[in-house]
């Protein structure tokens, strides 16, 4: 059983400081929604408002069809997994998972059954008698997830659950959470500052900045078709390159790149001569072929084996990041031509809005 969540004009202030400034969002049942954004943008606060851990200053929150603004956290049909796991340190794994069920008035046998079932799903059977301190980070996170599963919530809330894990475990747990979602078919709201987690897990990504939604969409929507320069820069790794340009006779002059000219990307409106804009081009969109080309000097080369990132600049321009695929043999100081197809590039107005 899973419910949808609806946020209507949700606001939150701490004293005079407004940290959530009117958020509207519709989350479908069984949807995996990821809140992503830079640190301090209000992701956790928004999640905690859904959980009932923070009071809602303005707007309405619905879980299923019920307005939940004033409903106690324990009655919202949600379960939450915290970044620090928040396990009870003095209880073993079994008690940690079963503790809440006791207060839900469940019979002992039934608790045992539920906990065993969750342990089976998460592969925790052999650890049931251990205390949290005798578990690895990944195992602790599994127990925390197990504690959420046994309550059969309508909505799971995750607040940066993988941030305390090392890189390898993070990938492993990410896959596990994805598997869990497809197995349980529950609604999940998941907070992270890591856009890779967002891209890989989400059905729908919500990009937040300064307490507002910048854009909502599927991972590929946001990657291919960002609404503004913030989303374009936030989604995708390494970051998109932004080049200041000026329209000149139907082409773009790169003002900081020695006045080179590149063809105009296909956009719906004509730019006036002399109009300034920002050209966005992803590192991976530099190819061997393409009508547009940039002459650059290589500054740093990062060889990852399968992928090589070249950081280059032209004169005094900002550094450009170029993904060259598996190309080897590029050295510092080399001159190279970075080509791209204008149809892959995006254009933004000086105040950061997308020109479509």
């Amino acid at each position, binding site marked *: 059983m899973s419910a949808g969540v609806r946020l209507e004009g949700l606001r939150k202030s701490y004293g005079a400081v407004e940290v959530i400034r009117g958020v509207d969002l519709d989350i479908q049942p069984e949807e995996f929604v990821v809140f992503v954004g830079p640190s301090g943008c209000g992701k956790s606060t928004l999640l905690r408002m859904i959980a009932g*851990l923070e009071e809602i200053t303005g707007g309405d929150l619905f879980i299923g069809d019920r307005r939940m603004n004033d409903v106690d956290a324990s009655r919202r049909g949600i379960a939450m997994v915290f970044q620090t796991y928040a396990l*009870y340190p003095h209880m073993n794994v079994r008690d940690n998972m079963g503790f809440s069920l006791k207060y839900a008035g469940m019979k002992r046998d039934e608790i045992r059954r539920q906990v065993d079932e969750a342990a089976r799903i998460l592969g925790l059977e052999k650890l049931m008698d251990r205390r949290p301190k005798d578990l690895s980070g990944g195992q602790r996170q599994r127990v925390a997830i197990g504690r959420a599963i046994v309550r059969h919530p309508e909505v799971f809330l995750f607040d940066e659950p993988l941030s305390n894990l090392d890189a390898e475990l993070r990938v492993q747990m990410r896959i596990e959470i994805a598997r869990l979602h497809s197995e349980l078919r529950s609604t999940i709201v998941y907070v992270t500052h890591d856009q890779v987690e967002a891209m890989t897990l989400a059905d729908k990504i919500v990009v937040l900045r300064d307490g507002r939604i910048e854009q909502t969409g599927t991972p590929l929507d946001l990657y291919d078709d960002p609404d503004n320069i913030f989303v374009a820069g936030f989604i995708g790794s390494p970051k998109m390159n932004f080049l200041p340009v000026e329209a000149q006779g139907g082409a773009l002059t790169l003002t900081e790149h020695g006045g080179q000219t590149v063809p105009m990307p296909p956009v719906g409106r004509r730019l006036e001569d002399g109009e300034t804009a920002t050209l966005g081009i992803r590192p991976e969109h530099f190819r061997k072929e393409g009508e547009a080309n940039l002459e650059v000097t290589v500054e740093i080369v990062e060889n990852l084996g399968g992928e090589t990132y070249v950081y280059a600049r032209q004169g005094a321009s900002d550094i450009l990041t170029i993904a060259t695929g598996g190309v080897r043999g590029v050295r510092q100081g080399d001159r190279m031509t970075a080509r791209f197809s204008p149809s892959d590039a995006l254009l933004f107005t000086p105040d950061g809005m997308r020109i479509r």
Partner: protein
Amino acid sequence: MAQTRLGRNENAAGWAFVMPALALIGLFMIYPILWSLWMSFQTGRGMNTTFGGFGNIQRLFADPIFLTALGNTLIFLAIQVPIMIMLALVFAVMLNNPRLKGRGLFRTAIFLPAVTSLVAYSILFKSIFSNEGLATQVVAFFGGPQIAWLAEPFWAKVVIILAITWRWTGYNMIFYLAALQNIDRSIYEAARIDGVPARAQFFRITIPMLKPVILFTTIISTIGTLQLFDEVQNITQGGPSNATLTLSQYIYNLTFRFMPSFGYAATVSYVIVVLVAVLSTVQFWVARDRR
């Protein structure tokens, strides 16, 4: 391992560094402890002592004043320590609530007694519980009976318990507060979402998590109460009719008030040592990890 010349030099330097401290500790701690153990087998008055074997220990069991002092001390211990620990816990949990206004003020107010001078506060308590004192007037104001606080054995004990509780609750509370502030807040948030009632959060989460600190403060308080001296000496002088006499006070009396009986006083001191050892062991055993 073969000692090199350098190694020997380093050893010598090391010993030279710790020697002054060791000498002082030896002179003022280890020597008196051993000497008092020897003393506890001496009988006689003043400087005039002879070896008495277990005579002093036999004397303990036949000494009505010792038995009274022991009884009083154990009563103080059994009543005051649990009350104080519970109070300190409750205060700490209340002060740890981030929504409480004026936390700093309350925290200071509750801790302040622990840093006031023993004599000053004893005199204050003495005056509050005197015949015209504040406590007497308050009781009278609410239509209560006239209580001769310091003249009745029962009430004198109550006053002493109130006094030490007043002084030491804040001290213990600080330990709990420090421990509570180290608990990850999200544990309580998880409990809240899980629908664990506040009472169960206190008894099933807070108390077990504070267990090591509770054990520590209980032992410290037990030792403190077994050595209780200043308050009784200043407020009641052990009276009325030895109703508040404690072991430490009795040791003091044996040594300085009566014709000095150093040997017997040392024996009573070792009674306190044995009590501390036994009670601490019991407390460790009760608080052991049952798994």
